[in-house]
């Protein structure tokens, strides 16, 4: 987090650090998934092991969320991926979905939403509502962010109390432009070089 927050690090360094942090978050996410025991044979004997109880669906939110997909795929190799993109008009609170492409979904699926920054929670709430419409129970949803603002955490917690949020940092507040303070700037702009 220290390196990601530092405004002097290069783009290449920012990407490398983001990837390292994503790996940690993916491992943490794994701790919160339901598993079941499975029987297998080693070359020498029968034993039992663990496997994930439910098929995983990664849901990256465009644009920043896609930076986390590749690392998560190392840990969840058979996950399907639902890409979503939306803008929220803060005044009318209307969400405009410009992209939505989900794999088949059922209440059996374990969803992992990927979005590096949870700021106001507006986008998060819209995505959660959409998943609810697809019949996904809250208990089957993990929200993974690198940095969160308390405002966003509260918003999600209030409307979706059973959704787990996994994050590397809970920051102080949002400023008047809705940026996380101290935060790390605009994640997408720094990662993609569109500042």
């Amino acid at each position, binding site marked *: 987090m220290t390196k990601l927050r530092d405004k002097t690090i290069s783009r290449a360094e920012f990407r490398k650090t983001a990837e390292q942090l994503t790996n940690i978050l993916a491992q943490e996410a794994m701790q919160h998934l339901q598993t079941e025991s499975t029987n297998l044979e080693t070359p020498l004997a029968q034993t039992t092991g663990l496997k994930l109880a439910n098929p995983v669906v990664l849901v990256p939110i*465009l644009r920043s969320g896609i930076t986390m997909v590749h690392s998560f795929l190392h840990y969840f190799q*058979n996950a*399907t991926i639902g*890409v979503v993109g939306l803008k929220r008009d803060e005044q009318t609170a209307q969400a405009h979905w410009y992209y939505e492409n989900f*794999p088949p979904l059922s209440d059996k699926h374990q969803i992992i939403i990927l979005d590096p920054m949870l700021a106001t929670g507006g986008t998060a709430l819209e995505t959660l509502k959409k998943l609810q419409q697809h019949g996904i129970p809250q208990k089957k949803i993990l929200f993974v962010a690198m940095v969160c603002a308390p405002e966003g955490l509260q918003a999600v917690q209030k409307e979706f109390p059973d959704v787990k949020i996994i994050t590397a940092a809970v920051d102080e507040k949002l400023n008047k432009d809705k940026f996380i303070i101290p935060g790390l700037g605009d994640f997408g702009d720094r990662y*993609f070089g569109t500042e």
Partner: protein
Amino acid sequence: MKTAKAIAAVFLCTQTALATDQLIESQNTLRNGKEWFTTGLRNKNTSLSKYRELTDLVASALALETMNHIQFKNITIETQLAPIAGIEEESPVVLLPVIRSGLSLLPTFLKYYQNAKVGFVGLARDEETAQAHWYYKKLPALSGKEYIIILEPMLATGGTALLVLEELKNSGADMNKIIFVSVVCAPEGIEKINAEFPSVKIITVGVDSHLNDKKFIVPGLGDFGDRYFGTE
């Protein structure tokens, strides 16, 4: 017949003047390797995780091939024993994945172009009205000096490709510095780019036979995005 002739001509050029030619099959990759990647990607029985592994491998081969078409400048460095000539990138590189499939090639290309800026484009085309709807467009500032590498695993009709290329032209890109990277191409798409933007280089591992009536590449590999993301 016209199609067959044009493609034959392109291949002929490829053999004689690789550097100035528009269509470049990734020849510098070991032939067997290339064949192996595409065999796996084309096979409809390939699993989701295997498909993704092969995508990473083929993206590496394509990324290495793009490096042959980017100008580098000579520099001198020192080994532990002596000075020696080396090269470094001369112009900045912009990677431009087309949403959604193009995203799958991005992580590998970023390993080769660590300082590249990344733009994104997403557009849907109404096949009846032929009107394009841009639902996403975010480009870094372009000075005209950049090499722009467009990432789009499948070049089918070329409709999307042309719209992206027009947009880049209007945004001040140098059309001599654009490389279009795809995994498989249909002859129809290649011809279309060839006709309107002859200076754009196309790098691919497979030029397939034709498009079917649903505009899918045949034999192709199905819908690349659906197979990679598991949305079939």
